[in-house]
């Protein structure tokens, strides 16, 4: 990777346009006005949310607000700080004097008839002063039976698989770039999760400005491609040219990951937020599974995109060049492939795909500042399973991991720990077949 890096924009005008676009994008990001305005009033407060936790036929939680419940906040000495009654959103906002330790207590006698706190939700919760991320600390109380057993076993299994396929497609989409960047440059990019978050957050930003998500999403994907472009153009291509070692580059990605994550936390805030469109959809039953039109479309579009990616890699010149560079960069260069150009394209495509995955994930769940980070580990499990550096491996591995994670709850893995089996798979695959399903054993020495 010592050869001089040649920019893809040969003419100056083109380069200027790209820089202008990039600067514009950055300005837009910093001025994400909509986010902070809704973040919180000044001063610290505790936001108590009381929800009736029900499960719909799909087994997904569906929370209904519980209105008219009295909640009280006590300080560390037990003195009352404030009390309030939940509004029609099930929310009670209680201002507190500062970030300190508090106790939040719910008056169970004020719960509507027929509702009781669920077994996993105590009537009293403590808030540690250092757990305030922003000025507002959210405390949740849940009522209702936590598990409704109305669905049959086959339906549950089918439903888990359907959700797993959707998650698997999203993971696969996010990991293509991660795996190919590793394959072509040897770099393990720990900031790749932030590229996913970037896509979701950018789409949210434009959505929040008033653009429909169908318009905001493509903008986010383009922005993701631009982010990938600039990451390589202004960052990693230069590092490669300067001879910055791979481990240093890896540590650089760690630093970028922290910086980006905290940037999102700053501008986007610590709360999960849904996109404004397609939020309240009713699931319809298709065979044994229940799925909302939104989730169905996400699944189909993701599948189509991934098939296109696979075809591109298999049949186009670009795809063949990518595989050649992955295989052996020096050899590829000597056969006339401009490997730095291929790498640039992979960064752009990888960034765009990650952003798209982020938008889909945001539609599927919600948008949050750390959504990419929590997916990153599943992506790693996926590409290790499929074969580090192989594009098809990333597709297959990501898909398998998604299904595995979603179906693990069927085997009694608690929902909060459902990503844990992915670590188990990661360890097992490294013990048994470290090159992954589709990877090849390498010559040693």
């Amino acid at each position, binding site marked *: 990777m010592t050869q001089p890096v040649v920019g893809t924009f040969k003419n100056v005008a083109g380069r200027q346009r790209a820089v202008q676009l990039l600067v514009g994008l950055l300005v837009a990001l910093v001025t994400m006005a909509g986010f902070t305005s809704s973040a919180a009033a000044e001063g610290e407060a505790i936001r108590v949310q009381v929800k009736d936790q029900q499960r719909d036929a799909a087994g997904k939680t569906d929370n209904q607000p519980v209105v008219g419940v009295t909640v009280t906040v006590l300080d560390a000495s037990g003195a009352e700080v404030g009390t309030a009654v939940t509004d029609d959103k099930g929310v009670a906002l209680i201002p507190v004097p500062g970030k300190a330790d508090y106790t939040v207590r719910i008056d169970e006698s004020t719960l509507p008839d027929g509702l009781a706190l669920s077994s996993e939700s105590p009537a009293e919760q403590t808030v540690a002063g250092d757990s305030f991320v922003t000025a507002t600390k959210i405390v949740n109380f849940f009522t209702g039976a936590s598990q409704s057993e109305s669905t049959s076993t086959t339906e549950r299994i089918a439903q888990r698989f359907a959700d797993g396929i959707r998650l698997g497609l999203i993971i696969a989409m996010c990991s293509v770039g991660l795996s190919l960047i590793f394959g072509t440059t040897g770099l393990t990019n720990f900031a790749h999760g932030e590229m996913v978050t970037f896509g979701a957050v950018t789409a949210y930003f434009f959505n929040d400005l008033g653009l429909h998500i169908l318009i905001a999403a493509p903008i986010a994907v383009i922005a993701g491609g631009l982010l990938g472009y600039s990451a390589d153009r202004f960052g990693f291509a230069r590092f490669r040219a300067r001879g910055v070692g791979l481990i240093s580059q890896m540590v650089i990605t760690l630093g970028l990951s922290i910086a980006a994550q905290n940037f999102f936390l700053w501008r986007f805030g610590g709360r999960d937020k849904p996109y404004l469109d397609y939020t309240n959809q009713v699931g319809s039953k298709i065979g044994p599974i229940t799925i909302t039109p939104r989730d169905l479309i996400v699944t189909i579009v993701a599948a189509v995109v991934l098939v296109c990616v696979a075809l591109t890699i298999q049949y186009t010149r670009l795809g063949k060049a990518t595989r050649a560079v992955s295989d052996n960069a020096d050899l590829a260069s000597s056969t006339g492939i401009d490997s730095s150009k291929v790498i640039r394209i992979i960064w752009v495509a990888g960034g765009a795909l990650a952003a798209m995955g982020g938008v889909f994930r945001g539609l599927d769940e919600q948008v949050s500042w750390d959504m990419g980070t929590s997916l990153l580990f599943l992506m790693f499990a996926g590409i290790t399973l499929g074969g580090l550096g192989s594009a098809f491996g990333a597709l297959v591995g990501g898909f398998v991991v998604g299904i595995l994670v979603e179906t693990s709850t069927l085997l009694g893995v608690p929902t909060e720990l459902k990503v844990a089996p992915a670590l188990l798979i990661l360890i097992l695959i490294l013990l048994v077949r470290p090159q992954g399903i589709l990877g*090849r*054993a390498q*010559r040693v*020495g």
Partner: protein
Amino acid sequence: MKDADDQSAAEPAAADAPSELSEYARVAKAALAGVSPEPGAKKPDPILTASGIRRAFGGIVAVDVEHFEVQRGSITALIGPNGAGKTTFFNLMTGFDKPNTGQWAFDGVSMDGVAPHRMAARGMVRTFQLTKSLTKLPVIENMKLGATGQKGEKWWNGLFPWRWKAQEAEIEARADELLKRFKLDHMRDEYAGALSGGQRKLLEMARALMTDPTLVMLDEPMAGVNPALKQSLNQHVRGLRDLGMTVLFVEHDMDMVHDISDWVIVMAEGQVIAEGTPDDISSNPAVIDAYLGAHQGKTLLEDQV
């Protein structure tokens, strides 16, 4: 020390008259004189034997050696065109890679499944085609690393210097002696990164000797060495045999092969295609063929120049 004196005394004589053979060389050549020059030939006293060694990467068979023996106390060269599988074969013999099938034995003990670090402990040491001198350690630390059975290499002893200081001093003395023999003593405290390519080859060889080997396997010792150093490198390789060690080396430099080896084994496309004394080999049509095929019209003689 006696070894070092022998070496310096032998050097000028050997350089002037290569035909004047040392005692060890005469023994080796005599032992090999009766061996028929054909692939897979049996040797009277083999230190390394291998049979049925096969290694494939994907669909490509890199090594497929039917039978292979190295005579104890000899200098054996392993030659062949690029991609003949010499380095892969080296990796297989030293445990850095595992063959798909085959058995091999060192000193009569099967080495199948033995980890590389245990091979070195049994007296089989190797160097690498791309020099692996540890550039960020001083030369003397590189040398001391080579010694085996160090008490101070157990972490619980590391905290108590009195348990390893005496041994460390012995090792250091031995390392200094070897550095002197390899004319690296003036670089003793420099980082190995400050050495020239040839000096690094010497350092790697010297470091390998710190393990007290009986079989030394050198992967292209002449690659990247400037011509002025080649003569002295030749002397050092001969010196190894004259200290009672067996040497097996991979080389492209035909001068060196012809000069110093007692026996030559030729590989092409993963197989052993010829064996014999250097003179047998240079007139062997199969060898010329193999090189012609790979070198597109160049003859073996041209290759020597």
